[in-house]
């Protein structure tokens, strides 16, 4: 009885007693959720357009961050480092399309998935061969001092990340919705063969999609890199993106965002209010358990592709 009360009532009571503190935790969680969403976004883009589950998205985040930080250390100004990294990611997209995707066209999805695992190891290794495997500090001048709004302490860095993510998503949404290329991308996502029948060249579309995913990876890499330092671990945040995807649905951009926010907020709140009951570290597994529950109840995720059925 007492245990039940501890699990079911006590945390809510403490939430009710300290609403401001709860709000801070929640906002902190949502902000880090934004960062998860950034990584998940890259997965969604590629999965939608080519049906490939790109295991290498995490490695692309690391790869982009390594080049960015490397360019900065060469003494390049920030804008040049950004431009250089963009060029690298676009070149990478071209290379992947030419060397991996084109020869494997029409192969079953599992083959393409394995190919992306190969790309993961290659990128992890190649990036570190060029730039070394030390942990590097990345400082792009985003203030880390907390912002005080009323009684709330908000991490300025997280706020900045949220704004960047919001901008990125808006630009992507406009691009997908209102440009001929965006329309073609959505058409390819719907039906490869029909897209080809109207003359949309698949390999061009794939190159574009992988480039966009690379750019999203670059943004994610810079944000995560400034938070944690640029190191091999960055590649592993891709694993945090998996539960986000399962929650949000693999084919939905809004899903990636909402999923990211849910996971971020959920794990922070669980950690702070439920963590003490089990001795902490709830944060590490919370997302995965949540994803598991979701798989049982709603396997296509919150916003997964609506399967259109006419009646």
């Amino acid at each position, binding site marked *: 009885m007492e245990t039940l009360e501890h699990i079911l009532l006590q945390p809510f009571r403490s939430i009710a007693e300290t609403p401001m503190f709860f709000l801070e935790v929640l906002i902190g969680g949502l902000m880090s959720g934004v960062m998860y969403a950034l990584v998940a976004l890259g997965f969604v883009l590629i999965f939608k357009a080519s049906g490939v589950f790109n295991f290498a998205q995490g490695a692309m985040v690391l790869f982009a961050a390594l080049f960015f930080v490397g360019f900065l250390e060469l003494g390049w100004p920030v804008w040049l480092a950004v431009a250089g990294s963009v060029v690298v990611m676009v070149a990478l997209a071209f290379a992947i399309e030419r060397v991996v995707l084109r020869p494997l066209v029409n192969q079953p999805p599992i083959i393409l998935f394995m190919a992306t695992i190969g790309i993961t190891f290659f990128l992890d290794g190649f990036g570190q061969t060029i730039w070394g495997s030390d942990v590097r500090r990345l400082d792009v001048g985003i203030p880390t001092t907390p912002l005080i709004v009323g009684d709330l302490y908000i991490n300025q860095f997280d706020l900045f990340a949220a704004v960047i993510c919001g901008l990125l998503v808006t630009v992507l949404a406009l691009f997908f919705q209102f440009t001929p290329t965006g329309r*073609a991308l959505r*058409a390819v996502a719907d039906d490869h063969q*029909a897209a080809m*029948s*109207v*003359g949309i*060249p698949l390999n061009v579309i794939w190159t574009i999609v992988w480039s966009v995913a690379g750019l999203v990876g670059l943004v994610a890499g810079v944000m995560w890199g400034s938070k944690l330092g640029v190191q091999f671990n960055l590649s592993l945040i891709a694993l945090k993106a998996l539960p986000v995807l399962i929650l949000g649905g693999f084919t939905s951009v809004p899903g990636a965002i909402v999923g990211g926010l849910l996971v971020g907020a959920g794990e922070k709140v669980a950690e702070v209010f439920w963590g003490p009951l089990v001795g902490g570290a709830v944060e590490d597994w919370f997302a995965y358990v949540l994803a598991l529950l979701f798989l049982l109840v709603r396997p296509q995720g919150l916003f997964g592709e609506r399967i259109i059925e*006419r009646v």
Partner: protein
Amino acid sequence: MSTAVLERPPTGRPVGEREPLLAVHNIEVVYDHVVLVLKGVSLEVAEGSIVALLGANGAGKTTTLKAISNLLRTERGEVTRGSIVFRGEDVHALDPPALVRRGVVQVMEGRHVFEHLTVEENLLTGAYTRKDGREAIRRDLEMVYDYFPRLRERRRSLAGYTSGGEQQMCAIGRALMARPKVMLLDEPSMGLAPQLVEEIFEIVGRLNRQEGVTILLAEQNTNVALRYAHYGYILENGRVVLDGTAEALRNNEDVKEFYLGLAGSGRKSFRDIKSYKRRKRWL
């Protein structure tokens, strides 16, 4: 669009010295390196005509169209012999986008609209390869809406939620937006009510007359196809077994019996069918 009256030959055959718009010479198609589907198909499509490709399930109609539009490769099919000539150019090695730019556009069997795009977005994807500017594309969009008024009503709905007939119209309209010289139309009657089939063929006929779009049509519904086409080829087991003007085919005894379901005189015995099959082998 074009107001010029076309002096069109009544058949799919070239008149005099004139080259056909599209000619397929003795092609063989193999799937997966082993399955031989087309065993030497030849046909010609004259500019401005409607040519029908008839035959039962699995006869090779769709494969022939896909060989021309080169959508075969996505299904691991391959033209292993013969040639496909469009306006005097051998096109069998071109990829689908290059063919669409030259004016060879396929409307696939089973519609294949982009379900999560609106009807209008579907139509606009058809203009992807065009470089002649927004204004021209707008004009063609209006032209498509004039031919298919139902699409104008449904322009804002997701194509996946429209009816089968509307989806077929959407697929044809989408192909029109690419400004095709020849449209490869695969089984437009599939799964549609007879009245709708008639409506769609009526519009296809008008497109042919008024816009000068040449049409190569694959169809199981022999009856309706031969009413709108000028010339026809009958495929069986990957070979052309019979060809002729629509008129001649309509009056051919074998076609009447096996494709139009009109028995000539009374019941026939099995022996007659066998003799037909025997004859067919030599055609």
